């Protein structure tokens, strides 16, 4: 299985340097329109095991896609930068009943 990277060209270049060949480049100005499609596409690919994104890019996604990205297990979406624990934190609160991430 492979790793995919979704984000602005400046975000993906470094990963390409490390050898990752599956990436979707969406320029900052097009993120509102094109990011949804790019994320849905990589989430639907069968040989992708991990999707790397920038945490701030999640804000550009529509509600459904964002939820899919945050809850997807295969592939799992790993976010870099920013807080990155929002969804998981909510989930822990709901499942266990206390906020364990304080």
């Amino acid at each position, binding site marked *: *299985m492979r*790793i995919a990277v979704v984000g602005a060209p400046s975000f993906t270049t470094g990963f390409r340097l*490390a050898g990752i060949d599956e990436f979707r480049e969406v320029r900052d100005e097009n993120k509102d329109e094109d990011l949804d499609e790019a994320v849905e596409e990589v989430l639907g690919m069968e040989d992708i095991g991990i999707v790397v994104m920038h945490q701030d890019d999640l804000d550009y996604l529509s509600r459904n896609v964002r939820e899919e990205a945050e809850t997807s297990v295969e592939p799992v979406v790993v976010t870099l930068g920013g807080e990155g624990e929002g969804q998981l934190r909510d*989930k*822990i609160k709901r*499942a266990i009943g206390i906020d364990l991430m304080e």
Partner: protein
Amino acid sequence: MAIEDEVKPTRKDLMEIKDRIELSEQGHETLEKKRDGLIMEFMEILEESQDVRDHLESDYDAAQKKINKARALDGDVAVRGAASALAETPQITLESKNIMGVVVPQIEGSKVRKDVGERGYSLLDTSARIDEAAEAYEQLIETIIIAAEIETAMKKMLDEIEKTKRRVNALEFKLIPELKDAQEFIELRLEEMEREEIFRLKKIKEKKEQEEKQEKQEQRDAEEESRLSDEASAATSSD
């Protein structure tokens, strides 16, 4: 509640409900143990995850700094050129591990770290800064793989904890109380029926006794009458 409509007040139903209560209570206990076990396991993973998150952030910052430096000093074109020359792609393999019935993945990466010579770009045309940036990103990918494994495990375990918790609560607050209500209803109903039966028997007995009494009375009356008529006839014959 419409327990009265669902259960019939018979001894057979009462036995069935008692069996179901026993089974539900056993299930409740088992599920409760499972939930507690899962939460314990989750706590362990949570600690690990916080460490990995910290690493991830620091690795990302370091990698970004290095690539920015390379970009600033060697130019964007050189960095992009080196990036597109890469031949080997990192691969990951998924294996699964079972934690208390939850299948969590174990992800292993291969070909993540490469030697300078394996990276595909010409060493003569690129600078050491690009090598450093590539190395930093390789390190970052390694951390991402560990983070992916832990975060998937956490998501799956949280789902399972939620599911188990819902089951425990459904048994504890819905099914078992309903079954107990049904049991109580049948028991009360059976007791009432028993009392009614005793009352009915008493009534029948009373009625029977009364009838016997009446019969005896009638018999006595009849005997009396026949005696009187016998005496009367005897008197007339003696005359």
